[in-house]
């Protein structure tokens, strides 16, 4: 050890290791871990080693979860569910409160264990991860207490299968378990193969506080264990991890009626404008991409800098990067520790090499790395072409790309030029510019002049292929609640469109022949196929409608995208259009009544009347179904905004040809979406008659597009369309499965809702509006 005089000459920091004695004692005492099922630990049959990535040393052995283990855990959770879900909210609140308190009392133990297992610096586990874990349980103790009052008509989903990643092991556990338990669910959680130890310590805490058996079950294992959990008899799967695995889970759960939330990858933009606090933004990069070794799904990995400051920014970033200390994660002065596993080190290394080979320039800190362990020096790329692999692929390591832009428009374009949409960071001292960017960036979380700020009261989750569902806050609770079951009603089976002439079903020729074409971009378009099919009732042809195909769907989606202004219109403007629509529908009530009557609707007047009421109800909601301001950190406004998805597909039931159609289309457009709707396959004329109503109601072209034809075939094209953000499908069970499986391509949000009595209370409500919007959390720190 150098003496004081020698240190005075260098003014080095010196070593500052966190003690590990208590944790290693615990690991030694346990040796190997079984699963935590039904309140006790199993004896492991097969197990695998868990290593410290900073040293390569083995910390413990944990059990490899088998099908039998998963079945036992699900069975235990199933058995515990009735008791747990029937507890009064206050009782569950007390349990969550006990968990929060106990976590707090074990804070250093958990921080040290997490650092040993994951390789992240002790500063982060001590100051960020574990405090947020405790905060999450406290916050959700509150939701348990308030559940009945705040979520009337909703209840727990049931048994939740939860699969979490290795980058924030205990924090992701808390994000999964706390809301699930608060809502009255029971869980089976599978921690990541690399980092199961804090989950096992949490299991001991559950036992320590005496949580009822089977409420929390933890099964360790690898991807196969996870797949078994996905396939098990659970009511919901919540997954955080890679987009690739998320896609596989979407396909695996398609048609099973399992509720699904996915929190997946990202390639989040970090946008710095010329008027930003440059030093602040440089420090932001440290918190964005050099936080947790860059192994952060919401890491600001694409730095976009306005051209005028690009050189200055790049220089300062290099200087700042040179100051980072990489090394022993247990050292209190380490900024960065080890990547989680040698496999990740190899992956990051090869991606970075590939990026260089494709012409980008790597700037990397010249810091000394420990001789062993999975360490990677922080860096960033300049001269990155958008087509370079590192621009597109999530590196999941401490390496960002830096690209320049000229104008705010270009910044938006670059920011949104990605398949992901998890988070964004915007740096500007101009609040007009910052909030404008926040509104335009497609991301579930936007931080203004900040990055990677989390709080249990705010929602977190992605747009696009970053997944769906939110964690945290009121919106996070919604992911673990379900509407109490509605009374489903089976629809009439879809007819097979018959495109041949129908001489045996003569048309009712009253006036001049009216031909219902498709309705695309505000104009009537002939179907691409050139075919029409007859709509008949009791042997009479009511009319001919176009037989839509893939290309018509494609054209309709394009027209819907062109109608961008609708999403930006005020709620009041949209309400005006919907009221006008009701007015014009009312003026033609007799005509619609007659049409429905001719198709055999039993109470046509009632259906038309209900349709007019529905337009009023959603007009009323257009400027009222608004967001909230979350109560998070002091001096931070955290806005939770309901944003439309953009372009939605809607496949309507065969029943209630007018009301079913409007009950689905109206809430979607009231919230600012543009829709491509497939009306009742059996009686599309009720919808095609609306063209003239739309035309006279100031509904902008392209907001509602209608393609008639075979529902499931058209819905399949919509589900497989990467430029459709959400899809509602009201049809057969087989259709549900098809829609959910096909939607995996771009991970669009789907809602497969059963047919119902559209005139009854289940025919409208806030549930439709919730499904028509996604929540964006915008963090605006303030203070001068």
């Amino acid at each position, binding site marked *: *050890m*150098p*003496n*004081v*005089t*020698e*240190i*005075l000459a*260098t*003014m*080095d*920091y*010196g*070593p*500052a290791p966190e003690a590990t004695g208590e944790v290693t004692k615990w690991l030694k005492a346990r040796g190997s871990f079984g699963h935590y099922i039904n309140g006790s630990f199993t004896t492991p049959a097969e197990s695998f080693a868990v290593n410290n990535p900073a040293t390569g040393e083995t910390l413990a052995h944990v059990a490899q979860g088998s099908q039998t283990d998963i079945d036992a855990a699900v069975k235990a959770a199933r058995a515990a569910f009735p008791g747990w879900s029937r507890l009064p909210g206050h009782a569950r609140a007390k349990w969550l409160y006990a968990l929060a308190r106990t976590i707090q009392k074990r804070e250093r133990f958990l921080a040290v264990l997490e650092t040993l297992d994951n390789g992240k610096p002790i*500063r982060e586990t001590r*100051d960020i991860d574990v405090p947020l874990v405790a905060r999450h349980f406290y916050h959700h103790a509150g939701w348990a207490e308030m559940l009945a009052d705040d979520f009337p008509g909703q209840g727990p989903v049931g048994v939740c299968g939860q699969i979490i990643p290795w980058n924030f092991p205990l924090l992701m556990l808390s994000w999964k378990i706390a809301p699930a338990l608060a809502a009255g669910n029971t869980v089976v959680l599978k921690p990541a193969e690399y980092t199961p130890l804090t989950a096992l310590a949490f299991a001991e805490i559950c036992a320590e506080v005496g949580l009822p058996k089977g409420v929390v079950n933890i099964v360790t294992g690898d991807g196969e264990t996870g797949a078994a959990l996905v396939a098990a008899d659970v009511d919901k799967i919540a997954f955080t991890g890679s987009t690739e695995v998320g896609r596989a889970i979407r396909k695996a759960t398609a048609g099973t009626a399992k509720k699904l939330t996915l929190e997946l990858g990202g390639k989040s933009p970090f946008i710095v404008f010329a*008027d*930003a*606090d*440059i*030093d*602040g*933004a440089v*420090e*932001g990069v440290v*918190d964005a991409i050099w936080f947790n070794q860059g192994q952060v799904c919401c890491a600001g990995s694409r730095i976009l800098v306005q051209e005028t400051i690009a050189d200055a920014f790049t220089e300062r970033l290099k200087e700042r990067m040179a*100051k980072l200390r990489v090394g022993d994660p247990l050292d*209190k*002065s380490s*900024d960065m520790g080890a990547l989680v596993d040698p496999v990740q080190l190899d992956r990051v290394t090869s991606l970075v090499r590939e990026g260089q080979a494709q012409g980008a320039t790597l700037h990397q800190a010249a810091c000394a790395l420990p001789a062993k362990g999975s360490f990677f020096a922080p860096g960033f790329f300049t001269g990155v072409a958008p087509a370079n692999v590192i621009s597109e692929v999530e590196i999941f390591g401490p390496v960002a790309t830096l690209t320049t832009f000229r104008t705010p428009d270009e910044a938006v374009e670059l920011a949104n030029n990605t398949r992901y949409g998890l988070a964004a960071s915007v740096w500007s*001292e101009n609040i007009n510019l910052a909030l404008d960017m926040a509104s335009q960036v497609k991301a579930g979380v936007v931080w203004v*002049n*900040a990055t990677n700020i989390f709080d249990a009261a705010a929602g977190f989750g992605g747009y696009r292929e970053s997944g769906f569902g939110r964690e945290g806050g009121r919106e996070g609770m919604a992911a673990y609640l379900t509407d109490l079951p509605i009374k489903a009603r089976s629809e009439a089976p879809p007819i097979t469109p018959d495109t041949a002439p129908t001489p045996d079903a003569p048309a009712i020729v009253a006036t001049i022949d009216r031909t219902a074409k498709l309705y695309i971009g505000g104009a009537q378009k002939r179907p691409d196929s050139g075919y029409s099919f007859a709509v008949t009732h009791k042997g009479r042809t009511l009319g001919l409608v176009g037989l839509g195909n893939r290309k018509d769907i494609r054209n309709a989606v394009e027209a819907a995208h062109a109608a961008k202004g609708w999403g930006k219109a005020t709620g009041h403007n949209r309400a005006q259009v919907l009221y006008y629509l009701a007015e014009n529908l009312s003026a033609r009530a007799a005509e619609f009544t007659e049409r429905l009557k001719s198709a055999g609707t039993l109470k046509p007047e009632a259906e038309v009347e209900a349709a007019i009421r529905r337009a009023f109800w959603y007009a009323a909601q257009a400027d009222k179904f608004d967001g909230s301001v979350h109560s998070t950190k002091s*001096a931070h406004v955290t806005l939770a905004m309901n944003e439309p998805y953009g372009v939605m597909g809607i496949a309507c039931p065969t029943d209630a040809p007018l009301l079913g159609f409007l009950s689905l289309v109206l809430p979607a457009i009231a919230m600012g979406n543009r829709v491509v709707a497939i009306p009742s396959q059996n009686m599309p004329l009720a919808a095609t008659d609306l063209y003239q109503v739309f035309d006279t109601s100031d509904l902008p072209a392209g907001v509602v597009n209608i393609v008639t034809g075979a529902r499931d075939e058209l819905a399949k094209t919509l589900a497989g369309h990467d430029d459709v953000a959400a899809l509602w499908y009201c049809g057969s069970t087989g259709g549900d499965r098809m829609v959910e499986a096909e939607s995996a391509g771009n991970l669009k949000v789907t809602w497969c809702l059963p047919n119902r009595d559209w005139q009854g209370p289940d025919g409208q409500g806030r549930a439709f509006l919730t499904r028509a919007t996604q929540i964006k959390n915008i963090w605006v*720190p*303030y*203070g*001068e």
Partner: protein
Amino acid sequence: MSHSVAASLPNHPRNPGVALQTDWFDHIAVNTQAAERRAATLTTRRTVKKEWQAAWLVNAIRCIDLTTLSGDDTPDRVARLCAKARRPLSDDLMTGLGLDHLTTAAVCVYPLMVPAAVKALQGSGIPVASVATGFPAGLTPLPIRLAEIRYAVDQGAEEIDIVIHRAQVLNGDWTALYNEVAAMREACGSAHMKAILATGELKTLRNVYKASMVAMQAGSDFIKTSTGKEGVNATLPVSLIMARALRDYGARTGHKIGFKPAGGMKYAKDAIAWQILMKEELGNHWLAPDLFRLGASSMLADIERQLEHHLTGRYASSSRHALA
């Protein structure tokens, strides 16, 4: 091994200043929350333990401007302070730390106390710093403020801690501020000048940056946060912004400017925190007394206690340490 850690006289080349150039700061963006986040994590990202902590505390002592600025100061009181500046640690602590010579960087007093301080520090090599220019408010007529500087220099002060006229910052009257500070710099002659910005009264971090830049352009050798008499004195966010301002000035002119936080820093951990800030934002050059001073009085006593604990493993009592 023992070593002499003498207070190095401010031997850094003087800052000649430059013409007033408001475009260096007109559009400066300082985001307060971002600055506060950085300041808050400086001391959670870095720490020093054991020998290193001891060394950093010793380093803090050699950077201290040991200060008394009270209405009841007397020559004897000042002499006592000077004795402490000459011998800040007891012999057993010095031996334990392997040091044979250690003093504070300077002693800082009111102008009328300069003669007493000069006398008491004779032969020690420790410079006397005097506050001047109507300290702490700076609201006396300029000729009187300048005369006060000349008086202190005449009495033997080698460093002058001037206060700026805050209204000139609050009103954005940069020319007036520049002219006054430049005049003070001239009045200082060969004495080094530290410009006290009284940041607690400038309120915004942008004002702090701008005032820092004008003070440096006008030829200040050091910029200093506070008089110790404002409602809010040295804080890490303010220091962060001043450090960045002097970094920017250095990048434009090539001159290294010193930094002195003052007021409100009472504990050893403050001494460590500000040194971490200096090292992280500016580098090791700013850990030596020619570019870094800690304006403090009671901080030394806490450092002594920590150093004794480091050596003995026992928690210390102030009654066993010589008063300042």
